[in-house]
C-alpha cells in the first residue's frame, strides 16, 4: 500500500463499474480520518508533507471513483486503455451529426432565453445518458469488452460535456432573472 496503489484497492472495493457509493464514502472517511493533515499538525515537516500527499491521493481517488464517467475511464486505464492519452480518436459520422443537433438545439434555446426548452433538452439528455451508463456497466463488468467499453466511454465524454454546457446555460438564465 503506497501512493501508487490503485484506487479500488485503496478503498477495498471490487474493481467494478457498478459501485457501492455508500461503501466508497464510508471507506473514504475512515482513511481520511487516519491520514488527514489535521492529525499531524504537531508533527515535523516531513510527516506533515506525507500526510498532505496521502490526503490528496485519497481525495483524488474518491473523486475518480465517485463520478461514473471518471470511474469508467479509470477502469479502462487500469485495463490498459488510456483514453486521456488518445484524445484525437475519430468518432463515427452518425454520432457526430447527432452531437451537432444536440448542440444546435441547446444554442437555439439559449439564445432564445427559452428556459423550458433547455430543461427539456436536459431531461432528454439525462435519459439518454442513463441508458448509456447501463449499457456501459454491462460492457465493463459483465462482458469485459474493453474496446467496446472504450468506444462507449468516448461518446459519454462528449455527452457529459454537452450536459455541462446545458447546465451552464440554465444557470446563466437563472442568474439573469435575479436582478
Amino acid at each position: 500500500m503506497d501512493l501508487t496503489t490503485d484506487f479500488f484497492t485503496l478503498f477495498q472495493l471490487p474493481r467494478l463499474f457498478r459501485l457501492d457509493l455508500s461503501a466508497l464514502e464510508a471507506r473514504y472517511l475512515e482513511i481520511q480520518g487516519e491520514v488527514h493533515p489535521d492529525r499531524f499538525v504537531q508533527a515535523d515537516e516531513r510527516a506533515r508533507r506525507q500526510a498532505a500527499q496521502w490526503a490528496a491521493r485519497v481525495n483524488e481517488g474518491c473523486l475518480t471513483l465517485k463520478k461514473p464517467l471518471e470511474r469508467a475511464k479509470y477502469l479502462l486505464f487500469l485495463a490498459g486503455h488510456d483514453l486521456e492519452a488518445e484524445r484525437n480518436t475519430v468518432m463515427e459520422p452518425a454520432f457526430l451529426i447527432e452531437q451537432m443537433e444536440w448542440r444546435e438545439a441547446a444554442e437555439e434555446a439559449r439564445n432564445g432565453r427559452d428556459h423550458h426548452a433547455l430543461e427539456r433538452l436536459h431531461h432528454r439528455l439525462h435519459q439518454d445518458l442513463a441508458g448509456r451508463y447501463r449499457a456501459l456497466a454491462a460492457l465493463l463488468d459483465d462482458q469485459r469488452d474493453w474496446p467496446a467499453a472504450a468506444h462507449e466511454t468516448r461518446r459519454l465524454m462528449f455527452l457529459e460535456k454537452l450536459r455541462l454546457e446545458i447546465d451552464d446555460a440554465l444557470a446563466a438564465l437563472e442568474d439573469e432573472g435575479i436582478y
Partner: protein
Amino acid sequence: MALFQISEPNASAAPHQHRRAVGIDLGTTHTLVATVKSGMALVLNDAQGHPLLPSVVRYQPDGQTEVGYAAQNWLASDPKNTVLSVKRFMGRGRKDIAHVESLPYDFVEGAGMVRVRTRAGVKSPVEISAEILKVARARAEAHLGGELVGAVITVPAYFDDAQRQATKDAARLAGLNVLRLLNEPTAAAIAYGLENAAEGIYAVYDLGGGTFDISILKLARGVFEVLATGGDSALGGDDFDQRIFCWVLEQAELPPLSPEDARLIMTRAREAKEFLTHHAEAPITVRLANNRTIDLTLDAHTFAEITRNLVARTLQGVKKALRDARLAKADVKGVVMVGGSTRMPQVQQAVADFFQSAPLNNLDPDKVVALGAATQANLLVGNKTGGDDWLLLDVIPLSLGLETMGGLTEKLIPRNATIPAARAQEFTTFRDGQTAMAIHVVQGERELVADCRSLARFELRGIPPMVAGAARIRVTFQVDADGLLAVSAREQTTGVAAAITVKPSYGLSDDEIAGMLKDSVSHARDDAQRRALKEAQVEAQRLIEATQAALKEDAHLLDKAEIARIEAAIAKLQTQVLGDNRRHLTLAMDDLAFETQAFAHRRMDQSVKRALAGRTVEEVNAIAERAGEERREEKTNEGSAA
C-alpha cells in the same frame, strides 16, 4: 507515520498537560481571540472587558503603534496614519481595491501588493495586520499565562491564494505559530454544529465588514464536510457604508472632500446604517472642517433601495454555491447567519425569502467564528475534551490552473475540490531545440488568463534540446490544508530532474519574514537568537518524545540495527537540547529525522492498512454482489447524479 502524532489516543504517555492554543478571527472591522477552557470555548476580553478588538492600527508621532479602540479615536483626525479595514488590501494591488479614490491613504504600489505610506514609513498590509495580531497574541498570553503553542487564524472562505498567503505571513510576523488557516464560515459551522448537534445539509451565510462568504456543508457525527463555497472577498458592511456615503454627497451636493471630512462622513454613514437596524429612520449630522453643517435623514426604505443590488449579489453567490454542491434550496436544513452585517433587516428578509425559511440567528454573529476557530485549535493541538473528535474536510474556493497557448487557462484543480489536493499534468515543447519553458500559474474561473488572478510565473530551464513535442514536462500542483498552493515542474525524459518549487509571488519568502521580524524587535539580534534557540529546543523535545512514543508502540517495524541507530540519534539530540548552540541542535534534529525516515514510511503504511483492516475477501465479494443487485436499477439515477 503516526510517528509524530503526539495526540494519538493510544500513544498516551504521561497525562499530557493542556496546550495553550487559540483561535483568532482577524476580521475587517473587528478581531477576536478565543480559547477553550475546561471544555468551553470562550472569547478573551481586554483589560476593560471588551471582547472585540477594532481592526484599526495607528502609527503615532512618537514612533509607537496603537491598535484597537485607542487607534479608532484617531480615524477622523489622523486619517493617513490610522489604517482601518486593512484586510481589504491583503494580497491586493492598488487596482484591485474598490473605491480606492475615497480612501484617505497614501498608497504606494509595491511588489505583490499595495503599501501604505505612514509617518512610520511605508507599511505593507502584512505588517499592519501583524500589529493587530500581536495585540491579540499578547491578550491571549496574558490570559493563558504563557507562550502559545499555536493559533488557528480564520480567513474568508473566498480568499484566494495571495490573500491566504498574506494572512499567514502576517501571523508569522506577529510571532504566532499558525496551526491552520481556517475558513470563516467553516469555523462558524463547527461552533454551530457542535453546540446544536446539527446533522444534515446546512448553509453558512457570512456577511461581515469587508467580505461575504457562503458555504454549504454536510454535517454528520464526527465529520464536517464542506460541499461548496462561494462569495466575494470585496463585499461587506463597508460597501453599505459606501452607498450611504455616496448618498450623502449627492444629497448635500458636496465638492471633493479632504481626507478628514471624508472619513468623518464615512463614520457617520456606518452609524446611520447600524441605527437603521432598529429604527425606521436615521438622522445624519456632520460638521465639516469649513464649519458647514450637514443635516439629513435617511429612512430604512431608501437605505434598502440604495443597497438592493449589494444584497442581490450575495444571493447570486448563494445560488452558485448551491449549484456547485448539486443541491436545491429545499435540501438545506438551516441557514446559519454570521457576521455583523447580517443584522440588517433587508439581509435577513432576503435570505428568508430566498430559502423560504427563517434563518438561524441563535449564535452571536460577532463571536461564532472565533469560537469555532478556538475549538478547532484545541483539537489540532490534541487537547481533547470528553473524547470529542471530528474530521474537517474543506475545499478551495477558486480553480487553479496554468496559462496555455493563446492566453487560455487550463484548469488543473477545479474550484470546490476537497483539500489537500494534488494534480499533475504533462506538457511538451513546441519548438525544436527548445530548452526553457515559461510556466504561469493562475487562479480563477475565466477562460482567458487575463481575466484570472496571476499567482506566479517561473521558468523551467535546462531542458535538453529535443525535437518539438518530445520533451515531457510534468507540472505538479499541490494545495495544502491551508488552501495554499505549491507548484513544481520537472522534465521527465531525462534522468536529471530540473525541478523548481514556487511560492505565489505575493507571498513573502522566509528570509523576508525573518528580516521583518528582526526589524520589528527593537533590541533586535539577541532576542531573535534567544528566541530561535528556545523554539528549536521545544521542537527538539517534541521530536524526542514523539520518536520515543513511536518506538514504544511500533518497534516491530524496525530491525535491531535500525533501532540502535535511532536511539543513538536520540541520545545525541538529548545532549544538544541541554546546550545553547542552536546550529548543533538543528543538525542533531536533522540527523534524527534522517534516521527515522524509513520508520515514518512504514508507520504511515501501517496506519492506512489498519484503516482497511478487518475486511475479509468474502466481505469485499459481498459488497460486489450487492453492488450488482442493488445498483443495477439505481444506475439510472446515478448516471445523472455525477
